[in-house]
């Protein structure tokens, strides 16, 4: 069959003029044309404008509030610039016990701890300066370094000297102890569920549920759980001789109690993401290691964990960011009590607002923002970036 035959055989449709399908230039067409030409702006402007109005404007306005004394009056409010007053009151003044804690003389243990941390931080900074030095890198490290020294001395003067610590300490306790516990348990559960077990879907759905329950609900549920006389574990409390024990009087018990509720809610978050990460590790790697005779622990440490690590770091970053905002659980479970033992900084700020002290409220909020940003940026630079770069 030759080419000529081919051409003759194929029925050729009538060719259309180019652009025969072009629509009429109606208003709609012209509008969509205009929109297309401005699609660059059209796509991104709404998000930028909303963030500017609801995030950036309040952030700046809040800064002004933090530096002034603002009172609500009929039909508006009046504010007066007071400089650093709101901050100094929190850090050095009459509210110091509330924010930082009660300071008396520092105990021997406190001195030892404070000096140890200071020495360690200075040593680490010196090591950095010797290895490599850039101005921005140095300043960037100076913030977390100074902050960790300050916080170490704060704990040395309060916790280690037998004094009560304030909302800053409580928040850090929630963040570091709470997140640490949640990470370890979440990782463990995810690893267990990634083993060849039956009913994987059942466990996956079940373990996920607490994350969805409203934090208010979690607060009330755990208040019921912890009721020593009418709660489900009443008999156990009585047997242990704690029948009349009240959560509302023991600071550490109350804090632990908040962390248990928080963990119950948030472990599922870490669990579900890490489980997906575990299951995304290519089977080939694991099977190759099994053929080479590696034990389960070796496979986990050498093969699975390096693959899961970047996900774990990011999940923890997200979790830490959210943990700094903790407010619902302590408010519902203990109302910040006993005293201020379970009061987080968010709650502290909220109580100041409720007392109509806008300046204090904004100042605490800004202190919280500062601590959050320094912690999260340090975490990001030291853990997430470091590990991803390998």
């Amino acid at each position, binding site marked *: 069959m030759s080419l000529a035959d081919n051409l003759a055989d194929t029925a050729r449709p009538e060719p259309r003029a180019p652009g025969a399908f072009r629509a009429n230039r109606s208003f709609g067409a012209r509008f969509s044309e205009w929109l297309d030409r401005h699609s660059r702006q059209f796509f991104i402007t709404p998000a930028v404008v909303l963030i500017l109005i609801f995030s950036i404007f309040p952030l700046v306005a809040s800064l002004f509030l933090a530096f002034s004394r603002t009172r609500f009056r009929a039909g508006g409010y009046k504010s007066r610039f007071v400089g650093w007053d709101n901050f100094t009151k929190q850090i050095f003044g009459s509210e110091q016990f509330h924010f930082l804690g009660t300071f008396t003389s520092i105990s021997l243990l406190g001195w030892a701890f404070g000096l140890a941390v200071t020495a360690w931080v200075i040593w680490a900074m010196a090591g950095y300066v010797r290895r490599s030095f850039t101005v921005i890198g140095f300043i960037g490290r100076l913030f977390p370094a100074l902050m960790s020294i300050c916080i170490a001395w704060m704990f040395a003067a309060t916790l280690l000297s037998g004094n009560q610590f304030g909302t800053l300490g409580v928040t850090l306790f929630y963040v570091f102890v709470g997140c640490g516990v949640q990470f370890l348990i979440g990782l463990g559960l995810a690893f267990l569920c990634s083993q060849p077990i039956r009913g994987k879907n059942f466990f996956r759905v079940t373990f996920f549920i607490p994350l969805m329950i409203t934090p208010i609900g979690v607060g009330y549920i755990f208040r019921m759980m912890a009721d020593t006389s009418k709660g489900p574990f009443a008999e156990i409390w009585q047997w242990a001789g704690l029948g009349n024990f009240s959560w509302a009087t023991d600071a550490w018990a109350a804090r632990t109690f908040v962390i248990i509720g928080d963990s119950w809610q948030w472990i599922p978050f870490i669990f579900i993401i890490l489980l997906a990460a575990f299951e995304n590790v290519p089977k080939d790697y694991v099977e190759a290691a099994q053929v080479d005779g590696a034990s389960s622990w070796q496979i986990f440490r050498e093969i699975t964990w390096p693959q899961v690590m970047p996900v774990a770091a990011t999940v923890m970053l997200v979790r830490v*960011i959210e943990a700094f905002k903790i407010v619902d659980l302590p408010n519902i479970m203990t109302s910040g009590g006993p005293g201020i033992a379970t009061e987080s900084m968010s709650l502290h700020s909220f109580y100041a607002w409720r007392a109509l002290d806008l300046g204090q409220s904004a100042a605490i909020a800004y202190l919280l923002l500062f601590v959050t940003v320094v912690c999260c940026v340090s975490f990001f630079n030291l853990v997430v970036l470091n590990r991803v770069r390998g």
Partner: protein
Amino acid sequence: MAYRAPRIEDRGALAKWFEPPAIGAMAPGTKIIVYSLLAIWTLFVLFPIYWLLITSFKSAADVNNGPFFIPFVDYQPTLQAWRDLFVLDWQDTIRAYLNSMVIAVCATALCVLIGSMAAYALARITYRPNLVTILIFVAIAAGVIYTAFALGFDWRVSAAVGAALFFFLARAIGRRYKIHLGNGDILFWMISQRILPPVVVVIPVYMMFQSVGLLDTHIAIILTYAVINLPIVVWLMYDFFDSIPKDLEESAQLDGATRIMTFREIVLPLSRAGLAAVTLLVIILCWNEYLLALFLSTTEAQTMPILVSAMNAGERGILWWTMSAVIIVMIIPVIAMAAVLQKFISKGILLGAVKG
């Protein structure tokens, strides 16, 4: 020493229990440990929910006379709490429920729409905002806020003056400096908004809504929720859009589709799974949000979490049975969504973004 592969005779006594009999199977000893740990955790997760459920069917006496565990055996379940909730206080309950629904749905729709548009733009269009212009904008915005707040000028006047000043300065100064930011910077800026603790922004937001008379309205809460969840949408959807092959969009472009048409016809349908997952996530976050609602709503726009926490304040102490019922009512829709959401997560749909 020459390397020697382990032999089967070398197995110790313990290995019999803990060495898997085959690839992809578990040894009996491991099995016992794994399943018992999982069972313990299942109990820890489910027991509080079980307790919540049975408490909602208890009468006041059943709750106060000590712990009862099994309905029909330990105590006789009643519908007392449910009747209180839906018959006596039905107005409050239904209103809060409807408020919560309307707010969660509208805020999510707004947030997902705007967020995915921005995420798509950042994944596909190159932006080069001028750093100097941005700095001028920030300085002028701060000035406007200062004059309005601290010096007490009318905010409309100072905003207008500020806008005029900005356009003048941006043209005069901003153009001379060629320091540009990129898409990555914009993306980081948007996502980093999530770090802001709500208490930092909520007071000015409160004042803002107060000054335009929108306090305690749906629209105030919807807008606020849409913005606080925007970073999540941008973050997750950026990753999703980024993973769609560019070929498809280029092909549509060659076929004559506009960018908006490409977005609607090609990109959105292709990212249905990601959109569904993000939508569920945001709707759940809006549904459960507490602190902002506490500031921005009092009665009219009261949401469920506020209703629940307000039940604490009764003079008879907490009515645990009614409280349990209302919490159950609140979590039922979320649990249904959670089952679907967990499927998306386990498919790895939200994993990409987290990988860093």
